[in-house]
């Protein structure tokens, strides 16, 4: 509880900072998001393709951020951070994925679509 005799600035987590990485991250993610924006406002692709492509873009952007911003790597200082995140990833997928699956089926089985509400289907 008293590690104060070490210089805190020499701690590996301080030394992780990399100006070049942060700038690269800024450029890449801003451009990726810009590309997604361009796709959606110009309606350049079909809706389903848009969903797929933008999801892909988001995945790439988050990957870049995880590596360059959050410094997810296997170095000794960061390994437990990375392990913890890898542990959570499947749980995010499970929570969202299984929920979506269940409710997709439930809507089909229990909802009576009246014409009144159906009118919004393709708006």
């Amino acid at each position, binding site marked *: 509880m008293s590690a104060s005799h070490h210089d805190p600035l020499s701690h590996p987590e301080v030394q992780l900072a990399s100006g070049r990485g942060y700038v690269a991250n800024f450029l890449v993610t801003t451009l990726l998001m810009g590309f997604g924006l361009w796709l959606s406002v110009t309606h350049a692709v079909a809706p389903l393709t848009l969903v797929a492509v933008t999801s892909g873009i988001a995945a790439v952007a988050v990957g870049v951020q995880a590596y360059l911003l959050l410094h997810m790597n296997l170095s000794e200082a960061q390994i437990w951070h990375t392990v913890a995140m890898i542990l959570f990833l499947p749980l995010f997928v499970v929570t969202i994925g299984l929920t979506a699956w269940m409710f997709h089926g439930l809507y089909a*089985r*229990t*909802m*009576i679509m*009246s014409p*009144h*509400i159906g009118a919004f289907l393709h708006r």
Partner: protein
Amino acid sequence: MVIGQTVKKWLRFTYGIPMLFLNGCAHSGLLLLEPRGLLSDTAVHYFTLDVGIMLLIIVPTALLAIWAMWRYRRGGRGAYRPDWSHSGRIELVVWGIPLVTVAVLSYLSIKAIYELNPYNPTILARTHKAAGRPLRVDVIATDWRWLFIYPRQHIASVNELVVPVHRPIRFRLTSTSVVNDFLIPQLVGMIDVMPGMRVKEAMVVNKPGHYLGFSADYSGAGLSWMHFDTHAVSVAQFRRFVAAARSSGRGLTDTGFNRFARPFIAVGGARQVFGRVQQGLFGHVVREVMRGKVWRTPMDMTENMVRYMKQQRAEQNAGEY
């Protein structure tokens, strides 16, 4: 599944034991184990298999545990080997037995789920090809009564379900306010009855008789009195019921239903029959709820309910029920 059959027979026998114990009379009250419908029969069939297979594992395990404790108790006969802590062969068996059991049970479970799928029970299609056109019944759960609408007959009945035997019944169910759970222990399993949604259930009664039905999910103060009677009758008797309802009962319109659905604790029963039910009432109720229609629970059925209950008590004592 020869083993399954044997196990089943044996288990049927063991059901008797607790019955003998507790009240010795012919009717033990263990409703779930006395199925009188096609679906409940099937469910009990799989239940028996499941329990049998599990007991094949659990009983020897329990005996093993008792044996180990007895033999290796301090001062017992077992040889003390403090350093023994691993055996690959035992580990294999220890993982293997549960794995195989779960595999078998999973197979059975999936088979049962499809056979008893409330929307389309395959067991019904397989065994009831020539049973004729199914009877449609729309069920609406209110706070705290059950309304059974017979859409083709344009009649409805409150807290009393009358159905012909051997003919498939197709239910559509919804609720006006909160989630209920539709259950007739001897005939059909539970299904959630949800407001703003429509679920389906199917049922075939094998024996004429009088069966109890319950609301299983908690729905508020009137839950305990939200039970209903199911009368499984012959075709002729069912026709008489329909005719009697048509001639005597009052009508039920969409606006009339709005009044009917107000919270009411059905102490002492709430039987009622409606002769002319507006067409499409079920769909109307579902849509109304989806649009946000709410039948609020007044404070005197929650916080201040002592007075309400006292009043009901007085009415009960006065013989009004």
